[in-house]
């Protein structure tokens, strides 16, 4: 078996959730890495969409920002940002959305707005971006984020984007007809909402991770499924795709920075 980091298994486990049939709205960072690993391995025909308006983009390296030139140059077409949010996201054309966050609660609601009270913030986070409408307009939502007591919290400081709300059928009661978060993939495990209560439940542990370790990295009393799976470890092929992607990305960004410095 290959050696791999927690970040690597998180990214690869997330990538496995995608298929060539998916049309996926991609956030920057971990979601972007996972989506492109999928595209470069088992899901070559996946349609990746970034909120900068690039549709069916096939970047050779990971973008630093949501609107890097590489995304447009390798896309089937690039539309305006209003069109992206109106025709494509709100129009119901996107079946999977991939999000990350600063804070997440037991119903997979997320906060990217503020730490502390909104009016007297302790830390002003970047804000909503596309997340509130990605969370409600995409067919379903995947969340990928590293797990810790600081990020997996008992109570969000602010509900930026709806997950399963207060649980049960709260999502539907708020007028939302899409599925919402169906999986949360962390560096320790995979969680899924309980079919009834919608409370996140650990359904698979990554190899070598103990339930206690996951519980200790969670700010609420975390539920575990009775029949707990073990995540398939990353294959050599999967790791090669991910590492090659990161290597190309680093090389590209460094050569660019070197050029920039030389100017």
């Amino acid at each position, binding site marked *: 078996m290959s050696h791999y980091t927690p970040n690597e298994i998180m990214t690869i486990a997330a990538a496995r959730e995608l298929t060539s049939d998916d049309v996926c709205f991609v956030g920057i960072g971990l979601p972007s890495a996972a989506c492109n690993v999928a595209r470069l391995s088992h899901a070559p025909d996946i349609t990746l969409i970034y909120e900068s308006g690039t549709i069916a983009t096939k970047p050779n390296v990971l973008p*630093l920002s949501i609107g890097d030139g590489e995304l447009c140059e390798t896309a089937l077409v690039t539309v305006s940002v209003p069109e992206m949010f109106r025709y494509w996201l709100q129009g119901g054309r996107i079946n999977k959305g991939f999000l990350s966050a600063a804070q997440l609660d037991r119903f997979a609601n997320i906060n990217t*707005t503020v730490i502390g009270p909104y009016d007297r913030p302790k830390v002003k986070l970047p804000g*909503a971006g596309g997340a509130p409408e990605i969370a409600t307009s995409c067919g379903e939502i995947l969340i990928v984020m590293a797990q810790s007591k600081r990020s997996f919290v008992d109570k969000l400081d602010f509900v*930026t984007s709806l997950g399963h709300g207060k649980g049960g059928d709260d999502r539907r009661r708020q007028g939302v007809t899409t599925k919402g978060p169906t999986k949360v993939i962390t560096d320790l495990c995979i969680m899924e909402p309980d079919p009834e209560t919608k409370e996140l439940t650990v359904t698979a542990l990554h190899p070598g991770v103990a339930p206690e370790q996951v519980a200790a990295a969670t700010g609420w009393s975390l539920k575990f499924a009775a029949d707990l799976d073990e995540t398939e470890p990353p294959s050599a092929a999967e790791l090669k795709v991910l590492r090659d992607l990161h290597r190309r990305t680093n090389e590209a960004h460094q050569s660019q*920075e070197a050029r920039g410095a030389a*100017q």
Partner: protein
Amino acid sequence: MAVFAPLADAIRDNLKDGDTVAFEGFTHLIPFAAVHEAIRQKRRDLHLVRMTPDLIYDQLIGMGCVRKLTFSWGGNPGVGSLHRLRDAVENGWPHPLEIDEHSHAALANAYEAGAAGLPFAMLRGYRGAQLKEVNSNIKEIACPFTGEKLAAVPAIRADCAVIHAQKADRRGNVLIEGILGVQKEAVLGARRAIVTVEEVVPDFGRVSPNACILPSWTVSAVVEVPGGAHPSYAHGYYKRDNAYYKAWEDIARERDVFLKWMEENVLRKGPDAFKRHAGRAA
């Protein structure tokens, strides 16, 4: 009809203290040169509008030009925080900043409604989202046919829009290609518009009949500023300077380092400083 003008004149004639102004460009074509000129001219009391404030608004806020900010994602993309924005919101430095915070979908729709001459935009948005509890600019309307409740936000009709584009022709028509963002909507929704361009060409040659072109009569002033989007990028001209974005983290974190950097790199410079970035590296 657009007039061709030097950058200092274009900013002086079209951007006033107290204006609502949108410097737009979604990662691509961010009008850095124009922002630096506004800072040099010491514009004050501005209401800035922009989906992604980016480094340009960090600079304007830190230099004390700004009263209010309408935005939807205020980070340094792929790097981290905008420290000057945070310092203003968290500590009121250099003075308190009023914020009008939205989602991308809401602001994109608000620009679209502004261009369409509508008083507001509607979207299936903000469901279960707490921003509508803290922002009175988010209201609700009902579909008169189905009864469905939709979110409503005011249209963006700026006093002045400022964008950077690849080309203008000699008549002052403007061509934008690549990631288009909300620039067309920002210009068409605004009373006045300034466009800086990489180059002025005799004509656009063989472009698609459906290219993104702003006719000269929708623009107040066109200014040739090669490299004027740096450290952002211009599709077909030069790439994004990711090193600048990464370096900004250390420049902007402390007030005195920031002020010294702005003095050296903005206040003592002019639009010509952007020329060296204009190489056709892309």
